């Protein structure tokens, strides 16, 4: 590093979210991804600390080498140089059997137990905004070991009560997933937003602030959350993206900026 010269790295919130998500994924684990930010994070992990991360798409792509960002989770990019071009039955069966460690999800609304809404804002029979629905989200959130949620953080999205519970988090609290019949030792693991990183309290299964991004305060997070969030005793500051991570994101993974510059 050049001495005496300050290196100022600028990055966007989306780039930071991609880096944070990528760092969670361990080498040798399997991750079910969607297109957009999830595949960017997974590809970044592969190009940095997790070359043996197994990427899986719900429509059947298993272990691809992603050449460019897919537009669909079922398009040809999702099984480019893959180890297997399978099908929905095969992938969802693998998830149900316990072979998939992580899944990425997004949402229009989230509650304190990590339950997600991607179906409707307003009444189901009289929607104010109709969203696409579960897709594979309910399956991923039910069957994968740990889910990682990537979404925008504000009071309209972090709500006390969901308009519709599309995908299960911890439902109404500890033990509720198991009582409902969902596989044991599964559930939401991290929530990554433009403001910080959240986890879930071991005892209560309520959302807990673990880290705030550079320039963001705990207050900012609380001001943008519509429920009581637990604050970790040691809220850390998120490590900013490294020069290498940013270079990979901008030059190799999303050079057209379809996702990271959106």
């Amino acid at each position, binding site marked *: 590093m050049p001495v005496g010269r300050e290196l100022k790295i600028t990055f966007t919130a989306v780039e930071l979210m991609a880096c944070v998500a990528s760092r969670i994924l361990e080498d040798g684990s399997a991750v079910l991804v969607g297109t957009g930010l999830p595949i960017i994070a997974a590809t970044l992990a592969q190009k940095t600390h997790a070359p043996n991360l197994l990427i899986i798409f719900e429509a*059947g792509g298993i272990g691809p080498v992603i050449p460019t960002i897919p537009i669909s989770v079922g398009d040809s990019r999702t099984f480019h140089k893959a180890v297997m071009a399978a099908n929905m039955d095969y992938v969802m069966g693998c998830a149900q059997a316990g072979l998939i460690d992580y899944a990425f999800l997004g949402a229009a609304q989230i509650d304190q137990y990590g339950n997600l809404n991607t179906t409707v804002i307003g009444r189901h029979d009289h929607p104010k905004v109709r969203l696409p629905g579960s897709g594979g989200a309910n399956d991923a959130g039910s069957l994968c070991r740990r889910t990682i949620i990537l979404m925008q953080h504000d009071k309209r999205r972090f709500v006390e009560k969901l308009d519709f519970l599309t995908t299960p988090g911890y439902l109404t609290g500890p033990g509720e997933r198991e009582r409902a019949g969902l596989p044991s030792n599964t559930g939401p693991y991290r929530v990554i937003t433009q403001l910080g990183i959240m986890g879930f309290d071991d005892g209560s299964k309520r959302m807990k602030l673990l880290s705030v991004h550079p320039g963001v305060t705990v207050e900012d997070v609380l001001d943008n959350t519509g429920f009581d969030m637990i604050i970790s005793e040691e809220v850390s500051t998120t490590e900013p993206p490294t020069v290498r991570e940013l270079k990979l994101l901008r030059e190799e993974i999303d050079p057209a900026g379809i996702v990271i510059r959106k």
Partner: protein
Amino acid sequence: MKVIHEGGGELLGWLDPDEARRWMTEEKNRGLEDKRMTISEAVRRFTKDGDYFALGGFGHVRVSMAAIYELIRQGRRNLTIAGKTAVHDIDILIAGKVVDKVECAYSFGHELRGLSPAGRRAVESGRIKVVAEISNAGFQWRFKAAAMGLPFLPARIMLGTDTFRLSSAKIVEDPFSGKPLCLIPACYPDFAIIHVHRCDKYGNSQIDGIEIEDIDLARAAKRLIITTERLIDEEDIRKDPGRTAIPYFLVDAVCEVKYGSHPGNMPGLYYSDEEHMAEWLGMSRTEEGVREYLEKYILSVESFEEYIQLVGGEEKMKLLERIETLEEPLKCPWAES
């Protein structure tokens, strides 16, 4: 088995397993017959108003747009669609007033492109109704139960959620483990349309790459129209039988339609036409734009070949081939606004 909860969604396409067997026994032709016909004949013979139907592929990947345009041209009405990752297919069908009810796993969205203006407008105004919710694996396993001739398949999905509450599934106590378990009802769509890479005149079909839900969907559908990029000889099928994804006795019609998935992706052959998708997403912001699009690309067009000419002809398709094989970078006009 004790039923713990029952979903309140409309149960669509379910048949008593003996009724389903009777259909398969009597209506599915095990004779090796030439089933080639035009897409307009196939749609006229094997689809009707009020049907419940499912489309193969993945909404804008290996989807039979040629058949979708024909459904619109023939003025089919009051159809209910299996919204199993329905993307551009459902958007055009809703715009074309073919569909008015949806069983929804994924609909009204365009994946990375965002939400669908036309689909959203229709559902938010009440013109079309979502009569049941489900998940992607839920649909897959509805078709799988039907493919196996079973009334349902158990799965550990939808439990504890509103997705279940508005589905047609039931939750029971598993007699083996004692744990709650979701029973996904079988689904026999009145018809399905699946676009494949190649098939012979009897309907023996090969699919390159991921099959999505089509192996089970082909077995579940009461009527199955296959559209294919290319017709091949029976001999080519028999040379490599491990490649057959759909055997002839499930198939009712075979229609050769080159580029039949445009503007969707056809893996290995051509990528999705993002320029055209951007045009649709732009025009479909208003009802006037929707009418203009339908008139220009579907209603005033007589054949799929004529449509391909209209969207840029061989030159455009060669470009999409080069994008598919990564020789040319992809441009997404909808991402630039």
